C-alpha cells in the first residue's frame, strides 16, 4: 500500500511494552465499557423508578427463558476458552490447531445466535415486542446490542480464520497479535453477557 513503516505494529513499544494493536483494542474496550455502562445505568435507573420489576408483575425468571439463557451462557463461556486456545495454538506455532479452535469459536457464536433467535421469536409469538413495557425494552435493547457485538465478533473471527490467516505465512507474530486482539474483544463480549444474564434473567 505504501512505503510508510508504522513503528510498533508488531513489536512491543520499549516503554509501554505493548504493540499498537493491543493498546488500540484496549482503548476500544474502554469505550465499550462506557457504552454498556450507560445502558446498565439506564437499566438501574428505570428499574429503581418502577413500582414493580418487571412492570407486568411476576419475576423476570418466569418471563424469560432461564434454561435457554443458561445454555447460552455455557456456549459463550465455551467459546471463550476455544478462543484462548486458538490464540495459544498460534503461540505454539500450530496453525491447523488454530483453525480447529477458531472454527469451534465461530460455530459456538452461531450457536449462541441461534438460541437467541428461538428466544426472540418465542417472545414475538406471544406478542411481546420491545414496546410491551420497559422490561422488554431493556431486554431487547441490551441483548440486541450484545447480539450485534456477537455478529461483529463472528465477522472478525471468520476473517482471521479465512483470508486473514494468509498473514501467518509472512508474519506469524503479527498474525498471533491479531488473534490475541480479536480474543480480547471476544472475551469482553462474553464478560458483558456474564452481567446481562443475571441482571435480565435472574433478578
Amino acid at each position, binding site marked *: 500500500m*505504501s*512505503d510508510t513503516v508504522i513503528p510498533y505494529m508488531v513489536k512491543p513499544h520499549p516503554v509501554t511494552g505493548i504493540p499498537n494493536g493491543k493498546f488500540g483494542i484496549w482503548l476500544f474496550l474502554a469505550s465499550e465499557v462506557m457504552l454498556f455502562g*450507560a445502558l446498565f445505568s439506564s437499566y438501574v435507573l428505570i428499574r429503581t423508578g418502577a413500582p414493580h420489576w418487571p412492570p407486568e408483575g411476576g419475576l423476570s425468571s418466569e418471563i424469560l427463558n432461564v434454561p435457554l439463557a443458561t445454555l447460552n451462557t455455557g456456549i459463550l463461556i465455551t467459546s471463550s476458552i476455544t478462543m484462548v486456545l486458538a490464540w495459544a495454538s498460534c503461540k505454539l506455532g500450530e496453525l491447523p490447531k488454530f483453525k480447529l479452535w477458531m472454527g469451534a469459536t465461530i460455530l459456538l457464536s452461531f450457536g449462541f445466535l441461534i438460541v437467541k433467535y428461538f428466544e426472540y421469536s418465542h417472545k414475538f409469538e406471544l406478542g411481546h415486542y420491545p414496546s410491551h413495557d420497559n422490561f422488554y425494552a431493556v431486554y431487547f435493547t441490551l441483548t440486541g446490542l450484545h447480539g450485534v457485538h456477537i455478529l461483529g465478533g463472528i465477522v472478525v473471527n471468520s476473517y482471521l480464520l479465512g483470508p486473514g490467516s494468509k498473514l501467518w505465512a509472512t508474519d506469524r507474530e503479527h498474525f498471533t497479535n491479531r488473534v490475541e486482539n480479536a480474543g480480547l474483544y471476544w472475551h469482553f463480549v462474553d464478560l458483558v453477557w456474564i452481567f446481562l444474564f443475571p441482571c435480565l434473567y435472574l433478578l
Partner: protein
Amino acid sequence: MNPTTTPTATGNGHAHDHDHGHDLERHGHHELPFWRKYIFSVDHKVIGIQYAVTALFFLLFGFSLMMIMRWQLAYPGQPLPLFGKLLGETAMPGGVMAPEFYNQLGAMHGTIMVFLGVVPLAVGGFGNFVMPLQIGAPDMAFPRINLASYWIFLPGCILMMAGFFMPGGAAQSGWTSYPPLSDIATSGQTVWCLAMVLIITSSLLGSINFIVTIVQMRAKGLTFWRLPFFVHAQLVTSFLLLLAFPPLEAATVMQLMDRLAGTSFFLPSGLVVSGEQLKVAGGGSPLLWQHLFWFLAHPEVYVLILPAMGIVAEVVANNTRKPLWGYRLLVYSVIFLGFMSFVVWAHHMFMTGMGTTMSTFFQTTTMIISIPSVVILTCFIMSLYGGAIRFNTPMLFATAFLPMFAIGGLTGLPLGLTASDIYLHDTFYVIGHFHYVVAPGTLFALFAGIYYWYPKATGRQMNATLGKLHFWFSFVAINFVFMPMFFQGMAGLSRRLYDPTVYAHGRGVQALNVVISMGAWGLGLAQIFFIINFFMSLKNGARVTENPWNATTLEWAAPSPPGHGNFLTEPIVYREPYEYSVPGHANDYSPQFKAEG
C-alpha cells in the same frame, strides 16, 4: 537552517508542479491512482485536509442557517428578502419563516456547528494533520482506521443534511434533543439520531487512533515533557471523546428505540399529547436522556476548547519568540480540566428539580473546574510578557482568543452558581456565554491555526493583508453579535424564541436584536476575505520553505507540504518544544530537531 532547501523536496526528488493547486502530496515510487491518493487515502495529511475542508464547509453552512434565523429575530414576521421565496412554502410561507422552520434552523445550527464543524476541524482536521507531524511520526498508528473514521463521518454528515428533506423537516428539538419532545417529533429526528450514531462511531475510531499514536509513535527523544502543548491538548481531548461519547451513543440508540420500536425509555406513564393519551407503555424517565446527553456534552465543550488552546499555545510561543510560560502548569491544568469535565455535567440541569445535595455537589465541581481555566489563561498572558511579539495574522487571532475566552469563561460563573442560574438558565445569557467561548474563542483559534499551518499543508503562504482585514472585521463584528446577548439575557429573554416580541421584556430588548443581526451579517461578509484568501493562496500564495515562521516544533522539520511518510530523515528530538531566544545563540529559535540548536 538552510533556506535554499527546495520546499517540495521528497525522497525521490521529482518535484514537479501541479498548477491546479492540488499538490498537497508528492508521488511515491509507485504512482497511486487519484482516488487512492486524494479520496480513499490512508495518509493522515490527506485525511486531515478532508476533515478540515468538510468542516469548513459545514461551518459556513451552519452559519448561513443562523444568518437566516437572525432575520426573523431582528424583524419578526416580516418576509425575508431575496431568499425567502427560495426556501419553499412549507419552511417560509409567503417568505415569512414558519415557527417549525425556526426550530429546525436552531437545532441544526447547534448540531452542525458542534459536531460537523468545530470538532471535525479541531480534532479531525488539525489533530490529524498536525499531531503526527509534531511527534515526528510517519503517519497515524492505524492509517486504515483513520480512513474508516472519515468515511463513516462523511455519510453521517450527509445523513444529517438529509434531515432537511424529511417530511416535517429536519430535527427541531434543539441540539440537545430533549425527550419527550424529541421522541414525538417528526421523522427528521430519526435521521438526526442515525447520523449521530455514525458521527459518534467515527469519533471513537479517531480518538483510539490519536491516543495510540501519541503514546506509541513519538520520535526519538520526544519525551512526555517535550511534547508541544498542542499534542497534550489533543491527547486529553481524545480521552474525553473516547470515554464520554459512548453514553450518548447508548442514549441515541435508546431514543431510536423509543421512536422506532415504541419503547418508553424516556417516556413516563400518562402522557397526554394534544388531548390524546400517548399509546406507550410508559415508565421511562425524561431526565435519563439529559444525564446521558450532558455526560457527553459537557466534556464535549472542552473538546471544543482544548484543541483551540493547543493552537493558541503554539501560535503564541512562536510569535512571542520566547518559551511558553508555565508549560508544565499548562499541561497539568488541561489534564485536570479534562478529568473534572466528567463530574460537572448536571450544571446544565439545575432547573430540572434537582435536590440540594446533588446540586451543591455539581455547583462545587463547576467552580473547581473554572480554576484550571484561570490558570491556563494566566499562563498565556504571562507568555506574552517579556516577548517580542510579532503581530502576523495567526497571532492576531490567537491574541484575540484570550480576552474573548475570558469573557465567555467569566460569564460561565453566574451560570455555574445555582442561585443565579435560577434566573439566567435558558436565557440569552447562556447563548452569549457559550458563543463567546466557541465563536470568538474556539473559532478564532481555529482561524489562527489555519493561517499558521496553511503553509505547511500547501507549501504557500496566505495573503497577510486579506488576513488582517479578515481579522479586524470579524473581531469587531463578532462582539456586536454576542455582547448584546448578555443584556438580553439579563432582561430575562428566553432562548429559542421564534418571536421574542411576544413578551414585554422581549420588546424591551428588541432593538438589540437588530444590532446583533447586523453584526452577524457583517461577520458573514467579513468571511469573504477569508474564503478568497483561502482559495487564491492555493495558487498565488508565496512559496515557502519548510520553516517559514522560524518555529521550533517538529512539523517544521518536514518539507512543506510533507510527502508520504512525512520526514526525509527520521527526526530526533534534542530539547524542549519552545526554545526561543535562548541566550548565546545566533538564531532566536532553537528547533527541537536540530542537535546544534
